[in-house]
């Protein structure tokens, strides 16, 4: 039995990390399965759907990509919207950097690929509890709780989805728009988001009717936020600024909110004391 208080603290924090990670893994299994199912119903081949989970590994962007492809959006537009949707990772990366400065560069490069909302939320909470970084803790959250469950569940969803003979009869086709709206609900953390969400939907539908669904989605996604910014910052009542643990928790699969999510330290000022 360890007598070193630092070891005891590490053990206790890792134990909590694993417990929180089990909740994340459970959600990743559920949503990875739904993603695989949706991708298959949208006409993705098994290899395409699984490659998306392994190579891109970004839940919301993957779900959105299914919709883009179904709507006939061109690849350049899909790539642009993916870049915008995933730009928040820049903030997580900057927030983790001070904790990871002693990790070899090659390993940081690998860490980056598995840096998701869930991995950030788990890691930053673990590091803060410890008051120092723990590389193994990062891997537990990023790989054990997220990457592996998400990819295995995608494979299961792909093969189950491919074996359902008449999916519309079972209402499977509604999973995609319902998942989109449900994910959006989790991201409405202030008045600006609410305005952006309503404007995005309104602009999207009107533009789709006047032109095509793909153009509608692009215009809704680009101009909805611009209208949201018309709400003055003082009246926005933002409760989860982008790049904070609270924000990561919102982007993480809904239903897995970790218990300690009240702090909202801006990214870049979140690291250990020098």
């Amino acid at each position, binding site marked *: 039995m360890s007598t070193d208080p630092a070891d005891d603290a590490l053990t206790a924090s890792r134990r909590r990390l694993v417990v929180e990670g089990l909740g994340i893994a459970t959600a990743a299994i559920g949503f990875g399965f739904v993603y695989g199912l949706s991708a298959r119903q949208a006409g993705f*081949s098994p290899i*395409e759907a699984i*490659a*998306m989970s392994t190579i891109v590994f970004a839940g*919301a962007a993957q779900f959105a990509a299914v919709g883009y*492809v179904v*709507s006939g959006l061109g*690849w350049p537009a*899909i*790539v642009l919207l993916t*870049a*915008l949707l995933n*730009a*928040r*990772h*820049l*903030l997580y*990366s*900057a*927030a*983790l950097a001070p904790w990871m400065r002693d990790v070899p560069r090659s390993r*940081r*490069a690998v860490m*980056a*690929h598995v840096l998701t909302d869930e991995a950030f939320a788990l890691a930053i909470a673990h590091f803060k509890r410890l008051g120092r970084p723990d590389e193994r803790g990062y891997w537990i959250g990023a790989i054990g709780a997220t990457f592996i469950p998400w990819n295995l569940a995608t494979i299961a969803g792909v093969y189950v989805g491919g074996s359902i003979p008449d999916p*519309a*009869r*079972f*209402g499977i086709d*509604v*999973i995609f728009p319902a*998942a*989109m*709206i*449900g*994910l*959006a*609900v989790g*991201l409405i953390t202030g008045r600006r988001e609410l305005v*952006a*969400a*309503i*404007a*995005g939907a309104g*602009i999207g*539908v009107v533009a*789709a*009717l006047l032109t*095509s669904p793909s153009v*509608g*989605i692009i215009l*809704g*996604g680009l101009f*909805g*936020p611009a209208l*949201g910014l018309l709400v003055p910052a003082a009246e926005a009542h*933002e409760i989860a600024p982008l790049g904070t643990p609270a924000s990561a928790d919102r982007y993480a699969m*809904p*239903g897995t909110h970790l218990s300690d999510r009240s702090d909202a330290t801006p*990214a870049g000022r979140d690291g250990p004391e020098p």
Partner: protein
Amino acid sequence: MSTDLVWLAVLMFAVTYPTRALGLLTPSMERLPQRALDYLQLVGPAILTALAAVNVMVVTDDSGATSFHIGIEWVAVLACMVVTAWRHNLLYGLAVAVVIVAGARALGIAAMPV
């Protein structure tokens, strides 16, 4: 078996990975301007609701013409939204949406999608 979308996945990776790696590999990176952060904060809700709304409200016929669609999918998506906001769990919302659509189609009060 088609593999075309694997290349799309590679392109999506090409724009996603740098956002994940930049901070970790170049810790001295300057932060984004506040206005850009404010915009990015709103991209997620706008894109996701645009996708959902266009998916349930707009249909395209064989000639490529679009038209406004009203159907059971509206009810299902709204129910999902309410349940997710209430229970803070999207899986519950998805289950309700699927049951509504499957039930309405089984009872013959909603048409199958075209």
